[in-house]
């Protein structure tokens, strides 16, 4: 699936969810189901700032595309991380850099989530794009 298709699918899923409880329940569920991160990557260098909760993220660049694994000590955060990773993981650096993440606004998350959370989400996306930029630079050099 393209990044766009992935986002549209999430938007579809959320349209189905009525009130805030359902949305949160869904995000929490995603958080619980997020594939566990290899403990060796849960190190300070992989910490993302800007959250009240801690988020670790590790990028794996193979065969031209990046796969992310991540974890958080807060489950709602973990659910959000899961959403972002589902959308962006498995794509090329260029696709990630160019991605317009409209799903965050579209599913009404920004108005529901506390800005503290949204800021965390933004830091997360920013970090992912930085990784992508770094890998792109690397691949252009080689």
């Amino acid at each position: 699936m393209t990044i766009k298709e992935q986002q549209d699918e999430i938007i579809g899923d959320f349209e189905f969810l009525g009130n805030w409880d359902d949305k949160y329940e869904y995000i929490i569920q995603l958080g619980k189901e997020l594939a566990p991160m290899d403990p060796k990557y849960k190190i300070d260098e992989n910490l993302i700032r800007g959250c009240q909760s801690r988020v670790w993220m590790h990028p794996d660049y193979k065969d031209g595309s990046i796969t992310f694994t991540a974890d958080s000590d807060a489950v709602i955060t973990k659910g959000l991380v899961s959403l972002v990773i589902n959308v962006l993981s498995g794509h090329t650096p260029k696709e990630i850099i160019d991605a317009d993440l409209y799903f965050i606004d579209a599913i009404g998350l920004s108005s529901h989530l506390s800005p503290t959370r949204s800021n965390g989400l933004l830091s997360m996306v920013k970090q992912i794009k930085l990784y992508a930029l770094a890998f792109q630079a690397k691949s252009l050099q080689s």
Partner: protein
Amino acid sequence: MHDSVTIKDSNVLDVEKVRKDFPILSTLVFGHPLVYLDNAATTQKPEAVLNAMDEYYHTINSNVHRGVHHLSQLATDAYELARKKIAEYIGARHAHEIIYTRGTTESINMVAAIFAKRYLKAGDSVLVSGMEHHSNIVPWQMACEERGATVKVIPIDGNGELVLDGLDKLLSEGVKLVSVNYVSNALGTINPVRDIIRAAHRHGIPVLLDAAQAVQHMEVDVQELDVDFLAFSSHKIYGPTGFGVLYGKEKWLNELPPYQGGGEMIKTVTFEKTTYNDLPYKFEAGTPDIAGAIGLGAALDYIQTLGLPAIRQAEHNLMAYALDALHEIEGLRMIGSSVNRAGVLSFLVGDIHPFDLGEILDKQGIAVRTGHHCAQPIMDLYCIPGTVRASLAFYNTPAEIDRLTAGIRKAMKLLK
């Protein structure tokens, strides 16, 4: 041993009536009536405070002290009357022992800077406690670093109480000043500050009390405490933001050098030599927050009309009710379990992250605070990422506590 608080007057507070003085309390948040339990961060303001400030701006707004003209006189009178009210509220001997600041943080920074300048030498130390707010840690770190001095710490135990056994020994090792909070904003503990002050004074060491979480909950009398400095913030005691108080004993304030320079704080200025003004103006450079002073004065008036004993009683009852209600929640553990407590309930539920719990409470209109509450060292001590903190004011009700516990239960269901 703890300081005990006597309730002089058991006038009952009519909470429904009192709530009408705070229109914001009937706000809806996400469709739910707001339950405001973040009073330790900042309190709401009664209409009387807003009216006093509006009246000032509408009728006498003018710069103080330097004017011949009528408005300036009236503004100066109102502004200085506020100082008298504040002095009275905390039992200061003189109104000129009240220095106006931006808040607790600035009050502590002021003392840290000028005390260090005059008295701290390399090898000296300043003693704080293990449950201080960052505002009572960082200024001392900065001042000590500059002088080659160090910050020492009174340890705390698992209940969130200070361990005073080693105090005498600590005090005898080069301590030049003790600075501790009266009530902890992270744990709610009321500290045995009388004991600390007495011990410090035996060693001839002055004490600063961070009373940011004390003055709004109980009677504080600086003369009876015999404390040397005391700091608090207007916005935490129903007054406006951006204003606060430093109390200092006249003797200390006269000895210490000024902090900031500028208009108001000088007597004469030439490029060769400047002489400083008398107390309190020596410490108040620049145009002050005139409306802020008047607003805090009105807040203290408001408290007096309710009666501090009645407030104390109402908050005491509510705290007991809340403790009982929270204890019934399975898996909930209090962080800080001192019996002497005021205002603050800090807790965790199972292994739910406080940020998650806080967010689900917010969606139900319940405002609590989550995180380290600017007291990271405590969180490190307990090895926790933070807590959920519900903090009470006299305008909170048992029904709001019920909303809180129901909200927690709902969050538990969602998050489990």
